[in-house]
C-alpha cells in the first residue's frame, strides 16, 4: 500500500528542473506546428497554429531567399532548402538544427518521397536534382539535368509522385523528367522533351495523376497524365494570351499543388492580370477572372470553397479572395505591405498571410475575413505548416 502511494506520488510529481533536458519543451504533438521563413535573418520562426503563437526562433540556416520547406511524415522534422544550396534538417520538437549539408551552389526547393524516406533537392547550380536519405541526409542519387553534352538546365517544379518517384521540369531544356527511386541503387529516368518553352514551375494534382508545368516562353501550359503507361506531355490552354502584348512579370508565379478546388484548377496567367479556370476532367479553359495584378500564388482553401490570390510587385499589398461557385472576387484584403505567401490551417478555418515589409504575419478567418491574430516576425516570407506532410505534391 505504502509503496503504491509512493509510486503514485512520483508519477504525479512534475519533473524536477534538474532532470529535464534544458532545451526540450514539454511533450506535444506536431500537427499544429508550422514555420515562417525569416529570410534575411537565415532563421525559421516556429509557430503554433492552434494558439496562434510564436514559439521560438531557429537560426543558423544560411541564405533563405526563396527558401522552401517539406516535412517528415511525423510532422516533427522540417527539411529546409536554402538559396545557398544548403539542406538543413530541423527538429521542430527540440528546436534544433540536427544536420546541415551544402549540397549545391544554388538551390530552389525540394520534395519528400511518398513514404518519407527520401528527400530531393532541386538545384539551379549545378542544374539537376539530388536525392538524400531523409534520416541521415546521405546522398542516394545525383541526377544532373544534363540535356546536351556538358549543358545542364536549371530545375524547377519538383514534386513527389507515388512509387518513390519525383517529377521535375528543366527550364533551359523545355523538358520534363521523371526519376524513379523505387530501387535506390538503380534510379530510373524518363525524359519528356519538347514540352513547351521555358517551364517556370509546376504542380501535381492532389491525386498524383496529373503534372502541369507553367510555361514562361509561350502562352499555355504542359500537361502530363502520369497514369498513362507511357507518359507524354501535351499542351493545354495554348494561346490564352490571344497574341496580346504581355504585361511585365515582376515576379514569377508559383504553382505547387494548391490550385485545385473541386474539379477545377485555378492557375495564374503569365503577363496577364488574370486567373485561368480549367476543368481538370477535360483540361479545357472554362473561365478567367480579372484580378488586381500579376498573380503569384493562387491557392485553394482545403475545402475548395474559396481561392486566395496574392500578387507581384507593385500590387503586392493586396490579397484577393475568389468564391469558386460564382467565380467572383468576394473580398480584397490589405493585410500589410508586400504580401509574399499564404498558408491555410489544416482544415482551413484560417489563413496565415506574411507581409514582408510590415514585419507581420496575419491570421485571418477564412469565412468572416476578420484578423484573428497578428504575429511580429521579421521580414517574413514562406509560411509552411506540418499538415503538408500528409499531402502529395508538398
Amino acid at each position: 500500500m505504502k509503496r503504491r502511494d509512493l509510486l503514485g506520488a512520483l508519477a504525479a510529481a512534475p519533473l524536477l528542473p534538474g532532470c529535464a533536458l534544458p532545451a526540450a519543451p514539454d511533450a506535444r504533438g506536431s500537427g499544429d506546428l508550422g514555420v515562417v521563413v525569416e529570410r534575411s535573418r537565415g532563421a525559421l520562426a516556429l509557430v503554433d497554429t492552434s494558439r496562434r503563437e510564436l514559439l521560438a526562433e531557429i537560426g543558423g540556416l544560411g541564405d533563405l531567399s526563396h527558401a522552401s520547406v517539406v516535412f517528415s511524415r511525423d510532422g516533427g522534422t522540417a527539411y529546409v532548402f536554402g538559396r545557398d544550396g544548403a539542406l538543413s534538417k530541423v527538429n521542430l520538437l527540440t528546436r534544433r538544427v540536427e544536420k546541415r549539408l551544402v549540397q549545391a551552389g544554388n538551390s530552389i526547393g525540394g520534395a519528400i518521397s511518398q513514404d518519407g524516406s527520401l528527400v530531393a533537392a532541386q538545384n539551379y547550380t549545378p542544374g539537376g536534382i539530388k536525392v538524400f536519405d531523409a534520416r541521415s541526409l546521405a546522398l542516394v542519387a545525383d541526377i544532373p539535368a544534363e540535356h546536351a553534352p556538358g549543358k545542364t538546365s536549371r530545375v524547377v517544379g519538383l514534386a513527389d509522385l507515388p512509387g518513390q518517384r519525383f517529377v521535375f521540369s528543366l527550364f533551359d531544356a523545355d523538358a520534363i523528367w521523371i526519376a524513379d527511386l523505387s530501387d535506390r541503387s538503380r534510379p530510373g529516368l524518363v525524359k519528356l522533351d519538347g514540352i513547351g518553352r521555358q517551364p517556370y514551375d509546376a504542380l501535381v494534382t492532389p491525386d498524383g495523376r496529373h503534372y502541369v508545368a507553367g510555361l514562361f516562353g509561350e502562352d499555355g501550359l504542359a500537361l502530363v497524365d502520369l497514369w498513362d503507361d507511357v507518359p507524354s506531355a501535351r499542351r493545354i490552354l495554348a494561346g490564352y494570351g490571344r497574341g496580346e502584348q504581355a504585361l511585365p512579370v515582376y515576379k514569377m508565379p508559383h504553382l505547387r499543388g494548391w490550385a485545385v478546388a473541386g474539379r477545377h484548377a485555378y492557375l495564374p496567367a503569365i503577363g496577364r492580370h488574370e486567373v485561368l479556370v480549367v476543368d481538370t476532367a477535360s483540361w479545357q479553359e472554362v473561365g478567367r477572372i480579372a484580378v488586381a495584378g500579376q498573380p503569384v500564388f493562387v491557392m485553394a482553401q482545403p475545402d475548395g470553397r474559396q481561392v486566395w490570390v496574392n500578387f507581384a510587385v507593385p500590387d503586392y499589398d493586396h490579397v484577393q479572395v475568389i468564391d469558386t461557385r460564382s467565380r467572383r472576387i468576394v473580398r480584397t484584403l490589405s493585410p500589410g505591405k508586400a504580401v509574399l505567401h499564404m498558408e491555410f490551417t489544416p482544415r482551413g478555418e484560417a489563413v496565415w498571410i506574411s507581409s514582408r515589409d510590415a514585419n507581420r504575419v496575419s491570421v485571418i478567418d477564412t469565412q468572416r475575413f476578420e484578423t484573428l491574430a497578428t504575429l511580429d516576425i521579421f521580414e517574413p516570407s514562406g509560411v509552411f505548416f506540418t499538415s503538408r506532410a500528409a499531402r502529395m505534391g508538398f
Partner: protein
Amino acid sequence: MRRLGFLVALLASAPALAQGVAEGRSAELVRIVRQDCGSCHGMRLTGGLGPPLTREALAGKPVDALVATIVHGRPGTPMPAWRGLLSDAEATWIAEQLAGGFPEQRSARR
C-alpha cells in the same frame, strides 16, 4: 567613400543628374533590389533564375548595358522592363551601385 562614389557616379551620368536620387529613396531602392529583384537574383544577389549581380559577376560589364537591361528588360528571358516602376535616374543609380558592390539593407540587422 561610398558617398564619394555616389557623387562620382552622378557626375559621370549627366542625364541622371537631372532627377537624381534622394537620400530616402536610395534606401528604398536598396530594399527593392535586395527584396524584389532578389526574388530571382537572390537577396544576396548570388543568382537564381536570374544571373548573379555581385560585383565580381558584373566585372567588365559596362554600366550603360546594365541600365539598359534594367530599363528595357531582356526579351526572351524572365527579366522584365522595370521602366514602369523605376525612373532612368533610379536605374542608373542601381546599376552604379551593383557595379561597385551593392549596399546592404540597413534594416536587415535588427
